[in-house]
């Protein structure tokens, strides 16, 4: 119950007193925000009533958590080469899923952008399909692929491709749609065909965005590739799962730390790149 009280207190402290402020905005302009905060606080409390969690059990088992964490931090180098090679496999899967997703997504995006698609109905259909693909979690796509392709690195890549294609397809369609109509008009008037317009105007306009989006997607896909192993595809997720299931917690702990280090490096690189691209 203590978390509920915490939530309520938080919602209250998040609302500064209106009257004492010098009004910079017309009064009542912030109303939707306060209604929103109150509504989410209520929804959150209702959620916990719906869930009806057994906190007694959790508190009782907190010592368990301590011993699990302690054992995991007691790193074991047992089968370390296997951990490293599965991590490499996950990284390779991530790279290939992002690479092929980027290329296929670019084509899909070109057909999904309303201003350059050869047929407007097609653009709408493509965007609906992309929305559906993104709404089904990656792990589910991966499970379906596993069911018909069997295990292996190709199945992992194919499972990840659903979301990377949908992501890049949406991002590219949006970027392409931002190209001003006048530019396209001018090129058409000059006699350029569709393919020339695409490579001459549309693609160059989206290049800086492309780098930032790929970096972001790489970060997300690495997380997804890691958890794919836990539902049966290969990679470092499988190592973590197998190690925990056979009570080799030290080995699992080391694998988790390696995943963290790699994710941390990607994040650091992405952040620096974002800063640099802003300067350009």
């Amino acid at each position: 119950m203590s978390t509920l009280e915490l939530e309520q207190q938080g919602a209250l402290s998040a609302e500064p007193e209106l009257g004492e402020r010098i009004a910079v905005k017309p009064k009542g302009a912030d109303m939707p925000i306060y209604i929103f905060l109150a509504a989410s606080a209520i929804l959150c409390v209702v959620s916990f009533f719906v869930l009806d969690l057994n906190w007694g059990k959790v508190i009782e088992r907190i010592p368990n958590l301590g011993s699990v964490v302690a054992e995991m931090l007691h790193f074991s180098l047992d089968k370390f080469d296997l951990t490293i090679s599965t991590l490499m496999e996950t990284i390779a899967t991530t790279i290939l899923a992002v690479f092929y997703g980027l290329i296929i997504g670019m084509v899909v995006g070109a057909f999904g952008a309303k201003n350059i698609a050869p047929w407007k109905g097609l653009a709408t259909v493509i965007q609906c399909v992309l929305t559906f693909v993104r709404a089904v979690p990656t792990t589910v796509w991966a499970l379906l692929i596993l069911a018909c392709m069997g295990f292996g690195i190709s199945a992992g890549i194919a499972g990840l491709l659903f979301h990377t294609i949908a992501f890049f397809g949406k991002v590219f369609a949006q970027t392409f749609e931002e190209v001003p109509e006048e530019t396209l008009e001018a090129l058409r008037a000059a006699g350029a065909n569709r393919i020339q317009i695409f490579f001459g105007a549309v693609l160059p306009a989206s290049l800086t965005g492309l780098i930032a989006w790929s970096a972001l997607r790489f970060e997300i896909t690495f997380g997804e590739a890691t958890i794919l192993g836990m539902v049966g595809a290969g990679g470092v997720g499988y190592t973590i799962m197998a190690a925990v299931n056979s009570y080799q917690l030290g080995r699992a702990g080391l694998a988790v730390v390696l995943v963290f280090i790699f994710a941390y490096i990607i994040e650091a690189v992405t952040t620096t790149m974002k800063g640099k691209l802003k300067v350009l």
Partner: protein
Amino acid sequence: MHKKEADKIAVASKESKRVMNIFLVVLAVLFIGATAFSKFNPFEMLATQGEFWRFITQDFLLPKFKNWGTLWDSIAETIAMAVGSTGVSAVIAFLLAFLGTSSICRLKSVNYVVRMVASVLRNIPALVWAFILVAAFGIGTETGVIALCVSTVGFLTRSFIETLDEVAGENMEALKSTGAGILPVISQSILPAALPGFIAWFLYCIETNIRASTILGMVGAGGIGLLMNGYIKQYNYHAASTVIIVVAVVIIGVNILTEYLRKITLK
């Protein structure tokens, strides 16, 4: 003056060209390395895609389903898990963010510890947390809620710190010079300015947590994933497809709702 401006433009475009080239080279190297390591051949996949379509059209579609009652209960549980854990995480992250930003909390060591903890929490995927927590707490919805909270606190703390840093800058200086104490500065200046940013991140987390909570069940941490995984494991694909379509509809619905909320709270 004219010449200087022209120079500037040339340098910028050269620079962006250089960045682009570096990006392409890095992409090519990564691609070749990964292909050599995994021996992945996309054409092989194209050759076997017939099997995939046969699977989708015959084993998977059309959906057939009986246990609607169980399905609705699981959906309600999944949504409650996502909303509840995002709410609790937002409150915790809200408090941590003040300790994590150097513009409010002057202790550099506290900033550092908060940022480091947040980084560990968010860079390990939620499902991995769930798996570790299942080992300690056993299977159940409680574990799922805690796992979601762990990764969401990590993500929101960083995002809230970023928002605070953006907002704090000049406002702080101006108000401090008038002699305002730290609490009035926070409640009168920083909070109102940061609130829209906080809400945007909160809504983003609701979206990602709805997705995450649908798969937590696969490691035994409650929600609709349990049901879905069960049907797939039993090769009952017609039932699985029903659950998957319902999940997709719920996620799309939540995205439409959060999009609407973003519009009304952030204008």
